[in-house]
């Protein structure tokens, strides 16, 4: 039975449960709503939940787990000799999956009976031709080994499907029966429904944790794989980055890290003074009318996607810097450079720094300002000597958050910084960053068995750990700061 049919049947059963339970509950109270413990609709909802939710959970889990288990079983049954012929187990498995899918289609289309599909022999007839007759294309003539494996796959999948149908429908029916049994006037259906909803809410909240786990898992295994193929000391401490597709690459992270930090540094050099002064002006000096215009305008910069900044770097800032600074001053003639990416990233970070600093400056209590004015200090003396020192921890936190943004930023550096891994002090030279290399190693044709691809996961994990550390530290500082003035 196709999955969506199963899904619809469960839903229909749930709706039926709703009406049945509602009816039964009302009947148990002699048709009078007031004698019921909960509202009649609540009994209905209770039944619907009991019917649908467990069944669908099982269905979902089954769909996710079955292919993984199947893959494991079948690939375990392929002899090693066959694997060495083909070069790689995953290639054989790709073949197997294709053939199995072909058999499936053929049986579903009625061109082949299940028995025929299972008894096919590779030498007897050309499977490829047989399939082509049925309108199913298979790339190459399958070997006996892969045909066997595919038949095993096909057999288990058929059994699995039937089992899934039975179990899911069984779960739905059980839930239906149980809920109906409990649709009585003295049962607290509301509590039961609310427990279910609470479960749903908790589940939604747990997705945040699942995401983090997913992020870590997705990188940890591949990174471990990478370090089993490539020395970790080389990766962390080598200054040479030179991936080659024929193997023998040098994959030292330091040049990428240098580029990342250099660009972030320039970006902060641009963003922190401008952002901070803008925040001070807007929160301490500007009248309501100036604030009402200037603040949203600066915040527009924050709403602009990074690809826009990237394009700006690529077609405007880069050529401008090259033609008016780098070339006349003899610093080189590359339009993508640390300076280009740093400047543009700085622009991107201005609103980030200014709105965070604005919040923090506003959190400084007015009484401190009054104290300072009361002593006869001017506004700027108050800001520099009282407000800023008081806000300093918060501002440091904001700068750390901005730094973490800068380190993790991708599109601006992809389009503005260049692709050459280099450790140089000249800001007008093209350099590259961790994020640029993650993109370049993971786009295009990727082979998940080569260190050249896997290194991207190690880079990703390093990036994740770095930004996480910065964020945790920054959030901690900012929280401490806020508590101080609450």
């Amino acid at each position, binding site marked *: 039975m196709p999955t969506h049919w199963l899904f619809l049947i469960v839903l229909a059963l749930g709706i039926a449960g709703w009406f049945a339970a509602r009816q039964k509950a009302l009947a148990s109270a002699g048709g009078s709503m007031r004698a019921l413990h909960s509202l009649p609709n609540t009994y209905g909802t209770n039944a619907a939940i009991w019917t649908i939710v467990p069944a669908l959970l099982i269905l979902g889990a089954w769909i996710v787990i079955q292919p993984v288990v199947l893959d494991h079983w079948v690939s375990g049954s392929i002899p090693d000799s066959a694997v060495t012929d083909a070069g790689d187990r995953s290639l054989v498995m790709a073949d197997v999956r294709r053939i199995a899918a072909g058999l499936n289609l053929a049986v579903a289309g009625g061109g082949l009976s299940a028995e025929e599909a299972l008894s096919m022999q590779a030498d007897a007839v050309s499977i490829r031709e047989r399939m082509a007759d049925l309108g199913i294309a298979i790339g190459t003539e399958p070997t006996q080994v892969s045909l066997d494996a595919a038949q095993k796959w096909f057999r288990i999948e058929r059994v699995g499907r039937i089992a899934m149908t039975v179990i899911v429908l069984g779960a739905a029916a059980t839930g239906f029966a149980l809920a109906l049994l409990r649709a009585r006037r003295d049962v607290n259906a509301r509590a039961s429904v609310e427990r279910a909803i609470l479960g749903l809410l908790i589940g939604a909240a747990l997705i945040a944790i699942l995401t983090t786990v997913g992020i870590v898992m997705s990188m940890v295994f591949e990174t471990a794989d990478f370090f089993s193929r490539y020395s970790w000391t080389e990766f962390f401490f080598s200054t040479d980055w030179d991936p080659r597709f024929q193997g023998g690459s040098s994959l030292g992270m330091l040049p990428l890290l240098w580029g990342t930090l250099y660009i972030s540094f320039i970006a902060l050099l641009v963003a922190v003074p401008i952002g901070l002064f803008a925040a001070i002006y807007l929160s301490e000096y500007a009248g309501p009318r100036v604030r009402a215009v200037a603040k949203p305008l600066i915040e527009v910069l924050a709403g602009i996607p990074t690809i826009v900044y990237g394009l700006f770097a690529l077609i405007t800032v880069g050529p401008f810097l090259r033609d008016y600074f780098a070339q006349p001053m003899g610093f080189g003639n590359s339009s993508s450079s640390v300076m280009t990416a740093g400047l543009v990233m700085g622009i991107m970070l201005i609103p980030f720094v200014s709105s965070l600093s604005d919040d923090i400056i506003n959190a400084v209590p007015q009484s401190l300002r009054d104290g300072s004015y009361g002593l006869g200090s001017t506004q700027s003396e108050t800001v520099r000597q009282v407000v800023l020192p008081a806000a300093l921890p918060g501002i440091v936190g904001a700068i750390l958050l901005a730094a973490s943004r800068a380190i993790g930023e991708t599109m601006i550096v992809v389009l503005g910084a260049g692709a050459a891994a280099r450790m140089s002090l000249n800001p007008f030279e093209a350099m590259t960053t961790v994020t640029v290399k993650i993109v370049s190693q*993971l786009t295009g044709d990727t082979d998940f068995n080569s260190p050249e691809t896997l290194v991207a996961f190690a880079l990703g994990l390093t990036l994740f750990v770095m930004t996480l550390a910065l964020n945790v530290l920054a959030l901690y500082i900012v929280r401490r700061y806020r508590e101080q003035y609450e």
Partner: protein
Amino acid sequence: MTDATASGNAQGRSRSLKVLDERTRKRYAAEKRFRYYGMGAVGVGVLLLVILLVSILSNGLGAFRQTMFELEITLTQAQITEAEESLLKTSVYRGFIEENMRAALTEAGIADEVETSQAMELLGGDAGSTLRNWAVGQRVTPVPEPDEGVTRTFNFLADGRIDGYFKGRVTMESAERDSRVTPEELALADDLREAGVLRVEFNPGFLTMSDASENQPEAAGLGVAIVGSLYMMLIVLCLALPIGVCASIYLEEFAPKNKLTDLIEVNISNLAAVPSIVFGILGLAIFINFMGLPLSAPIVGGLVLTLMTLPTIIISTRAALKSVPPSIRSAALGVGASQMQTVFHHVLPLAAPGILTGTIIGLAQALGETAPLLLIGMVAFVQEYPAAPPEGLFDPASALPVQVYNWTQRADPAFFERASGAIIVLLVFLAIMNVTAVLLRRRFERRW
């Protein structure tokens, strides 16, 4: 001690407050300087915004206008049938265009000076297929009157270099060095434009056509990218909004103060600051390699963007829930509503405008996100429109910001103009979303 004070006071007393002493004057100068720094910073911020927008607009507005041949084409049913039966269908159609081009040149009165085949050189590569797409729709089987003709006026896109010439990107000098265009062709284009056969007009195809190959910048459009972005936004809306609202309700209204809740809270605030590219790695490893979802599909992009947007939505939803005063909750609980009923009947409806505003802003963020989509294969060259959802969610598609990136990676500078044009489209969408959010907030803002 008293003496010192007395003398100090005496000094102060002798001085009028209306006269600024030297030191105070200096302090006021410093005050003024400081204020100028602040104004300067605000000014620089606004100026940079203006430069950014002007740069994008001046580079990109050209993409909405394109050089086109306006030709009247007459085809007979027999011609269509003949063309459809031949092997190189589009080149046969191109032949039909050539016949009609001759007529057009004659009509414009320049048939003597201009060879038709030369004029055909200026025509973009996709003219044949444009004509065919229309002709196939006109074909009737069986052919009733083989000689019966259908006539329609077409705007065929001119070659990208010719278009570049009219927009100032290509000059006579650069044409000398260019293998794809000659100065003679540019001169011819000038003549044709004067004769009214060539004109620069608004190009709706930029918004509706799909991407085109490296050699046909004139035919590249945003259609597939817009549809892909739309699909992804649909997925993000359908997943992130309910999940985000449920999670926020739990954390704000039900969660006990314990380790697990703390962990979730810390997780959410950290996820909000995780670099977007890391979510791309997550998508690649979990959704594609582990779960086996297809590359380049909106479903994968949508899922990745959902996970990215969730923290934003959760944070703004919690703020909205928090702003509903406790008195409302007490009132509902006081008439005997359960906590669940209180939340769903009273708190949630009151928080709805705030939640909606936060969701729109989250969606706007997701719409402009590029980096994670690069890793899940959205960079692929996609020419086919995806099918209607739900199947279409699994078809390959592009996305607006990725299309921009894609075009910046091509050699022909005509694609830079396209990329800037695509940015304008993206910014218009973002502006609409943000303005909606602001209006919603204004309309429903409630002060307790």
